[in-house]
């Protein structure tokens, strides 16, 4: 055994035990990749067939009202829509496997190029909104739990309730009116002032990062002025959700026996809340935050519409209404990947936060 182990180690340069670990990890990850691929394929199939069953004619979306029959037929052939449904799907999956997402009917460009452009816009907005949601929502939730049924709790509850019930487009319009129209504190709709467009080379697509890389600080601050308001409006909804969940998680923990023990031992209240209770809340909280982030990354159609924000939500909606299946499927894959990615990320965070999860 010793001999064999030495031989293996000499041969591969790693101890056998570690190699086995790597093997298991590889097997796990290949299993995981297979699962992801299967999930995405299922997602695609459902989206594809639903998209083809709805009575929207993609050919008409392309050729328009007044097109004569032969143009209509020619475009239909060109799009492959005269083929049987399963064949269309097979062709699509084949192309996709080769990395070809196809061409969007609406923008007349490769879908992948469109997504490269709209996704960073959504990423920017969703990330800011989530930062706001976490920075305000978690402390608010804790405050609500600590001072249960006292005024801070009531305040958190009212803020949360308003956040849930006010329509987001209305909040967006009013936000624009007050902070842009009247006060002039923030920049108007869009991602960037019109005269700042194309001033920094596209590296990541996220304008703030690109501007920082190019050290164009004027562009950076202009972009920042544009993202503040829409992300605050979106963030408000995250705040409401995250605060409510934090509050209920915290309440559950604060009633546990170990808290009473800690109190009996004379541990300071601050330490009990921030170290003992919060630590135990962190795992479910990460799930909540991750889900809320993932939801925002799908794009927020109404916010994007009010703020003329060229993000994924509006892209997907426009594509759906024109039965632009390549674009819809492309965006669906992105959304699917986001969920997989966010799940992975929260898995990693669990392991960091809870040693038992390792």
């Amino acid at each position, binding site marked *: 055994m010793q001999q064999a182990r030495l031989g293996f180690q000499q041969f591969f340069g790693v101890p056998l035990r570690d190699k086995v670990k790597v093997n298991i990890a590889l097997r796990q990850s290949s299993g995981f990749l297979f699962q992801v691929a299967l999930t995405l394929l299922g997602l695609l199939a459902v989206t594809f067939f639903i998209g083809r069953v709805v009575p*929207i004619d993609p050919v008409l*979306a392309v050729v328009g*009202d007044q097109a004569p*029959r032969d143009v209509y037929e020619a475009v239909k052939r060109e799009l492959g829509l005269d083929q049987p449904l399963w064949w269309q799907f097979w062709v699509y999956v084949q192309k996709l496997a080769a990395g070809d997402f196809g061409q969007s009917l609406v923008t007349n460009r490769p879908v992948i190029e469109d997504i490269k452009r709209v996704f960073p816009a959504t990423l920017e907005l969703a990330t800011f909104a989530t930062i706001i949601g976490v920075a305000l929502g978690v402390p608010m939730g804790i405050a609500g739990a600590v001072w249960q049924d006292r005024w801070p709790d009531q305040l958190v509850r009212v803020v949360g309730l308003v956040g849930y019930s006010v329509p987001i*487009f209305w909040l967006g319009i*009013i936000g*624009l009116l007050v902070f842009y129209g009247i006060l*002039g504190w923030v920049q108007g709709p869009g991602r960037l002032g019109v005269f700042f*467009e194309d001033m920094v080379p596209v590296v990541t697509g996220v304008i703030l990062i690109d501007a920082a890389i190019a050290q164009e600080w004027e562009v950076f601050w202009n972009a920042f002025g544009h993202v503040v308001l829409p992300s605050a409006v979106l963030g408000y909804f995250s705040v409401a959700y995250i605060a409510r969940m934090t509050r209920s998680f915290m309440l559950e923990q604060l009633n546990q026996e170990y808290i009473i023990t800690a109190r009996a031992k004379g541990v300071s209240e601050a330490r009990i809340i921030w170290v003992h209770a919060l630590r135990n809340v962190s795992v479910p909280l990460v799930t909540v935050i991750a889900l809320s982030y993932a939801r925002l990354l799908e794009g927020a159609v*109404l916010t994007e519409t009010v703020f003329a924000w060229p993000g994924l939500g509006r892209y997907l909606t426009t594509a759906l209404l024109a039965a632009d299946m390549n674009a819809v499927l492309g965006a669906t894959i992105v959304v699917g990947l986001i969920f997989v990615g966010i799940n992975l990320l929260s898995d990693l965070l669990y392991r960091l936060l809870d040693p038992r999860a390792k």
Partner: protein
Amino acid sequence: MRDQMLQLGLHPCCAGLWQGLPMALTWGFIGCDEVAKHGAGDVVMNPHFSKRALFTAGAAGLAAAALPGARQAAAQQTPRNALVIAAQIDDLVALDPHHSFEVTGSDLLKNVYDQLFIIDDSKPSAELLPGLAESFTTSNDGKTFTFRIRQGVRFHSGNPLTAGDVAFSLRRPLQINRTPAFMYRSVGLTADNVEQTVRQTGDFEVQITFNEAYAPTLIQNLFTATIASVLDSKLVLQNAGEDRGNTWLNRNSAGSGAFRLTRYQPNESYTLDRNDTWWRGRANTQRVIVRHVPEAATQRLLLERGDVDVARNLTPTDIAALRGRPGITIQEFPRGTIQYFSANLGDPILSNLRVVEALKHLVDYDAIATNLLPGQVFPHQSFIPRSILGEVNERPWRFDPTRARALLAEAGHPNGIRLTMDTANTFPSLDVAQALQASFARGGVTLEVLPATGAQVLAKFRARNHQLFIGIWGLGYPDPHYNADSFAHNPPGANNPGKLTWRNNWNIPELTARTEAAMRERDQNARAAIYRQIQAEFMGTSPFAVFAQQQVQVAVRSNLTGYAASSPGLSAILWRATKG
């Protein structure tokens, strides 16, 4: 300039906020309520409703709140040499002028490409001016047109424009065969004959031989359309793939017009830069930036703040609120687009002409123009839009529920009828359909409105599976034939879903012959007379109820002049726009 845009300081008019906000809150909620009511009715809830909700809530809120505040807040201004426009441009599919068929497309392309003829944009009547064709002659049999091409014109690339480019550009629409190609085919040009019928006969001379002796005005008007744009053939051929440059031209431009396209991001924005050597003279503005702003209330805020010079897509509420506001001017110009609904004569109930007649008596024509779409339309009942050759301004149909009931009884429906109407779920068709639902009810017609996305209802319409369909018809080029071709032309056995007559099963061999005769009438007055006769019959017995013609309302900053075109069939003419 940039510093000016970077306003992050506190504005001294907080008072406006406190006066306006509570009202805005109330109004905004009222707006949402209204929408909830709509959603609960027959009408299917769909994403467009949220958009409508935005209009209602936003517009009402703004009307209440912006008034006190924004008047002072409008401190910003765009640079004098640049024109910034907020518009909805997400329906822009193609940039290839031989492929494009959207209004937003012609807004862009008419400023980037030159055509053989020009509609005088300074006069309300659609008068013709020579464009890239300086002059033309016709042969004795009237079939062959010889065009003298203007010399000394250069494309944006620097290539000189020659008859070769013109011949190339006249043939290409048929060769790539996209939607607008039907305009050329309606005068007998086809992909098969175009190499022979269109000939370059000199360095600056092109000859076209048509299959018939068409009226010269028809040909001239046709050659003002976007499809008649002359492309830089050398540049296109350099970049052409298998599709004769179609893909390349949908992302780039190869024109000789007042502006060149320097930047285009679909669904986001485009930028046009001035062509300093344009043959008609240099445009007043150096750069034009058009930005996609989907929400009307947002467009309005941008205009009020002075971040844009023009807001293209405002609602009647926005326009009413902005009228008379210092610093903002409302400009109106007619658009050659008409609104109509049509009855499928293949339907057993509707095949009775009395029923169709009754329906025409159940449209409250005046209420649509004055209450429902104030300023956005004016009453019009025939298919040739106002200020186009052969226009008819008589309006024989009046709202008369009593007469309608009598007609229905005559048709054998004394207890009324039930009908369905297909409509796109967008403004204004859906709004009019809902108004018709109310006015039809007064004559005993129960109307079920079936809203769906534009592509969806069109598919049903083209398959002739509708009872009633409400639609909008745009004028492709400012000639009466364009509309007559679809509203009064249906050759037997043609089986053409592009024609409205065919879609409604309206068989009219005699009117078809007259429409064809009008195409060949060389005398302009006689030609107009034929169209007037056709329309008289159309208004009397057709399955179409034309009820309005659209007009464009834009709000601009008052220091901007010369933006709006005064002639229908044209959209924004950017080269005259000047900022004071």
